[in-house]
C-alpha cells in the first residue's frame, strides 16, 4: 500500500497552495452574493434565518448538493455591547469559514458544504450540526436561552471549537460565561499525546498563530500583554471522558485560515492552522 500522501508535509504545503488558489477563485464567484444574503439574515430582527433552513434554501443553487456530511457551523452568540448582528461572533466571517471548507474538502475526504453556516445557540436546528466553531469569546455574554441551547447541544454529543481570544481578562470572561453552560465540568489542559493532535495530522508542537497584522509584519505574535504570550489548548470532558469542547486560547487560527492566500502571510501559521482544523473536524466526526 502506498504511504498516505496527506500525512506528508510536502504534500500538505503543496495542497494548501493549490487549495488556496482554487478557494480564491471560488470565493470571488460566491462571495458577494452570499455575503449580502448573510448580512441581511444577520439582522437582529430575523436572527433565526441563519439556521439550517436558510442553508437548505440555498441548496437550490445550481450544482450544489442538497446535503453534505459536514457543515462548518459558526456559533452566533450574544456579546457585551452587541446583539446577534455583526457582533464579536462574526469576526473573520464569512471569509475564514469559506476558506476552511474549501481547503479541508481537498485535504480530507470530508464531504463539506461549500457555504458558511452561522447558527444561533438558541436555535433548535443547531442540533443538526454536531460541529460548532466560536471565536472572540472574550466578550461573550450569553443569555439564558443560549446557555440552555449550548449546554444541551454539548451534552447531546455536539463538539465545540473555541478560538481567537487572548489574555487573562478575556479568559476570565469566557470562563465565567462557560461555567453557566457546563458548571459541573472542569477545564483542563490538553496534552500533546491526546488523540486530537494525531487524528489526521501529527501535531508535534502548539505554536502561536498571530493576527494577520502581526503575522505579516513579523515581530511579537501575542496580544493583550503578558497573559497572552503562551498559546494554550484546553478542553472540557464529560463524565465518560469524551472531549466536548476544545479551547484555543492566545492564538488566532481563524486569521490563518482567512489570510492563507496572502503571499505576505507566513506559511507556517496557515499550515499549522489548517492541520489543527483538519484534526478538529475528523476528531469531531469519529470520537
Amino acid at each position: 500500500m502506498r504511504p498516505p500522501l496527506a500525512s506528508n508535509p510536502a504534500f500538505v504545503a503543496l495542497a494548501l497552495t493549490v487549495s488556496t488558489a482554487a478557494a480564491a477563485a471560488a470565493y470571488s464567484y460566491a462571495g458577494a452574493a452570499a455575503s449580502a444574503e448573510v448580512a441581511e439574515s444577520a439582522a437582529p430582527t430575523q436572527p433565526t434565518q441563519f439556521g439550517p433552513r436558510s442553508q437548505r434554501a440555498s441548496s437550490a443553487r445550481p450544482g450544489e448538493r442538497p446535503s453534505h456530511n459536514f457543515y462548518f457551523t459558526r456559533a452566533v452568540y450574544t456579546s457585551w455591547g452587541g446583539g446577534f448582528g455583526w457582533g464579536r461572533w462574526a469576526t473573520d466571517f464569512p471569509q475564514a469559514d469559506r476558506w476552511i471548507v474549501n481547503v479541508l474538502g481537498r485535504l480530507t475526504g470530508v464531504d463539506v458544504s461549500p457555504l458558511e453556516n452561522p447558527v444561533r445557540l438558541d436555535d433548535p436546528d443547531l442540533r443538526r450540526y454536531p460541529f460548532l466553531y466560536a471565536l472572540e469569546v472574550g466578550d461573550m455574554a450569553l443569555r439564558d436561552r443560549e446557555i440552555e441551547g449550548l449546554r444541551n447541544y454539548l451534552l447531546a454529543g455536539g463538539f465545540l471549537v473555541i478560538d481567537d481570544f487572548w489574555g487573562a481578562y478575556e479568559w476570565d470572561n469566557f470562563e465565567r460565561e462557560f461555567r453557566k453552560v457546563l458548571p459541573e465540568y472542569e477545564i483542563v489542559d490538553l496534552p500533546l499525546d491526546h488523540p486530537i493532535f494525531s487524528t489526521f495530522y501529527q501535531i508535534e508542537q502548539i505554536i502561536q498563530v498571530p493576527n494577520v497584522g502581526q503575522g505579516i509584519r513579523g515581530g511579537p505574535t501575542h496580544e493583550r500583554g503578558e497573559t497572552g504570550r503562551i498559546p494554550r489548548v484546553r478542553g472540557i470532558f464529560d463524565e465518560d471522558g469524551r472531549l466536548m469542547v476544545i479551547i484555543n486560547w492566545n492564538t488566532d487560527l481563524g486569521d490563518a485560515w482567512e489570510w492563507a492566500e496572502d503571499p505576505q502571510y507566513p506559511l507556517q501559521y496557515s499550515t499549522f492552522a489548517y492541520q489543527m482544523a483538519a484534526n478538529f473536524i475528523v476528531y469531531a466526526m469519529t470520537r
Partner: protein
Amino acid sequence: MALALWEFLFKYPPLVFEKGRLVFSTPLPGWMIAVAIALAGLAAWSYLRRSRGLSPGDRAGLVTLRAALLALLVLLLLRPTLQVPVAVEQENYLGILVDDSRSMLVADDGSITRAEDLVAQLDAELLQALSERFRLRLFSFSGDAERVEEVGQLSFTGGQTRIGRAVEQARSELAGVPLAGLVVLTDGADQSEAELNAALLSARSGSLPIYTVGVGREQFQRDIELRRVSSPRGVLRGTSMMVDLVIAQNGFAGRTVPLIVEDEGRVVNTQDVEMPMDGTPATVRVHFTADDPGWRRFSFRVPLQEGELVAENNRRESLIEVREGAQKVLYFEGEPRFEVKFMRRAVTGDPELQLVVLQRTAENKFLRLDVDSPEELADGFPVTREELFGYRALIIGSVEASFFSRDQLQMIVDFVSERGGSVLFLGGRHSFAEGSYSGTLIEDLLPVELDPNPEPDYYREVKVEPTRAGETHAALQLSSDPDTSRARWSTLPELSTFNRLTRLKPGATALLTGSGPGVSDGQVVLAYQRYGRGLSLALPVQDSWIWQMHADVPLEDETHETFWKQIMRWLVNEVPDQLTLTASAEPAAINHSVDLQAELRDSAFQRINDAVVTASIETPSGISSELPLRWSNRQDGEYLASFMPVEGGVHQIRLRAERNGEEIAASTLALDAAEDDGEFFSAQMRAPLLRRIAEETGGQFYALSDIDRLAGDVQYSGSGITRVESYDLWDMPIIFLLIIGLIGAEWGFRRKRGLP
C-alpha cells in the same frame, strides 16, 4: 346403530364385503340358466306386446320395474357368494401391544385414567374373545416393546411412546410364526415420526395389518399446554430477548392466566395471557433480559389452573448460553461522517461489543479506532480471510465498490456465506447503486434489488416506520413494553437517504420502511436476508445520529443507543465459532443414547478432517469422562460420537480440537438430561395418527368404546394361516326387501295411473 342396521340388512359386517371376493356358485347347469334367460326374454316380449295400448311414459315405467325384478331373480339363480379368507382357529398368533407410557395415567374425564379404562376393557372381553381364535402374545411398550404374560404386569411408567420401534420389535419377536396381525392399544402420543414411517412401510410390504385402538379423548375438557417455545440457543449477556411461545388450551376461553419466565429459578418476567376461544392456540411473545453469563436454564410456565387435567405440560425449559466478552464488529467507513462518532458512542458502554472502526479520512489515509494491536488493520481493509474472519460482523459504510479488489469482494461474500458472519450495508452517497455495486459480487449478497438507473443527486428525508415484521423483531424493540416501543418509533425525527431502494430480494424481509414527500413507496430503511450460513442487512440511511442529536430528542433518551446495541447484538448473536457442538436431542432422555455432532473449521473457516476432537463430559454429580469424536467420513469437518446420560440434570460438555498437539478451537455445550415429559405434550388421543397407521397397513382403527368389534374383525385380516369361507348372499334380508319393493312399486304404479 348404523353398523347394526347394516348387519341386519346385509347379514355380514362391512369388513367381510371389503375383504371378500364375489363369485357365482350356482348349482344349476348352464343349459338350465340359458333356458331361464330365454323364458325371461319371452315373458318380457309377451309383456311388451300386451302393453302396446299404453302411453310411452307408462310403458317405460312398467317395463323398467318388471325388467329389474326379472334381472334380480336371474342374479339370485346364479347364487352370488362372498369368498373370504378367515384365520384358522388357534393356528395364528396375534400380537397385542399395550402402551405402557406415563401419558396413559391421564384421566381424560377427571376420574378414570386411560390405563384403568384400558385394563378394564382388556380384562372384560377383548382378550377372551381374541383368544378363542388366536394365540395371543401380549407386549407392553413405550420406548421398547417387552413381552408380558398378563395385563397386570403393566406399570404405565414408560417414557417416550415409540410406536414404530415397538411394532418392529414385536414383528421381530414373532418372526417365524403365522401372524394374523398386530393390535396396538395406545393414546398415540408418539414423538418419533421418521421411525414410525419406516415401520409402517415395512409392515405394509410384509402384508401385516395393524389394528389400532385409541385410548383417551381427542380433546381435553380443561387443559393448558405450553406447546412450543422458540428460544435462541445463545445470546450475549444483557441482551433483551424475545421468545415466542404457543399455548394450546381448552376450557379456559376468555380467562387470563399468568405466564412466568424464570432464569435458574429467578423470576425475570411475568406476563398475563388472555386465552382465546377453546381449541385455538395462543401465540405469546415474552421479553426478558439474560443478565448472568454461562449456560442458563430458562423455564416458562403457566401455574396449574383449576380443573386442569395434565400438570406436566404447563412448563417448558430451555438451556440458553449467555455469552460474555467483547464480540468484534468491524465498521469500515469510506468517508468521514458523524455516523462513525455516534455509532461508537452508542455501543461504547456495552461490554459485550467491540466496534473496531476503519475509516478512510482521505485518499489512501486511514484512521483505526479501538484495534487490539498496532498490526490490526495496519494495511487498511483486510486482504486475508484469517484477518477478516476474525470479526463476527462487518458494517460497510459509504465506500464505492471500486475501492475493493475482486478478492476482497469475494471475501466479503464468503465472510457471510461460509464463515457465517453478518454484514450490514449502510446508506450513503457511495453505497448501493450510488457506489456502483450493481454487477459486482456484492449485489447478490444484498437483501435489496439495486436500481439499475439510480437518480443522480437523489436525496430524501424519510419518516421511519417499522413494518409488521419489524414491530415484533427483537432488535427493534425500543422498550420492553411493546406499546411504548411503538409510540417511540412514531415520534422519532426523520432521517435522510441517498439510496432509493424499494424492491426486496426473494426471501428478504423488510423491518423498517420510510415515507415522506417524494419518497417512493416501499422505500427500504432496514431489510435482511439469510445468505449461506450468515446474515445480510441493508440500512440505506446515512444519519441515524439524528436520533441522538435532534432537538426533539430528550437528552436522557436512549433510542439511538438501544437501536445500535440491539442491531449489533443481532449481527453477532448467531455467528458460529470455529468449533460448534450440537446434540441430537435437547434435552436428552436418561438412559437413551444421544448423538453429539461437532463441526470444525480453521481460522480461515475451511473445514478440517485431521484434528483430534475430544469431549470432556462432567455429569451433574461431578463425574468426568472423556469422549473422542471421530470424523464422520461423510462430510468435511464433521465429527461424531454417541453418549448416554445415566443421571438427570445438566451435563457440562467441553469440546476441544487439537492439531499437531496444539489446541485450535474449543467449545462448550450444556446438555440437560431428564425423564422425558414429551408424553404429556399433545397428550390428547391422536386419532388421525392411529387411523393412518391402520389404513396404511390394511388394518382398522377403533375407539376404545368400539373395542368389542375388534375380535370379530381381526379374523378377516387375511394374514397368517387362513382358510377360505364362502358366504351366501342370496338370503340377505336386503334382497327380500328389494323383491317386495319392486313388486310393490309396480302395483302402486298401475294403481296410480289407472292401468289394468
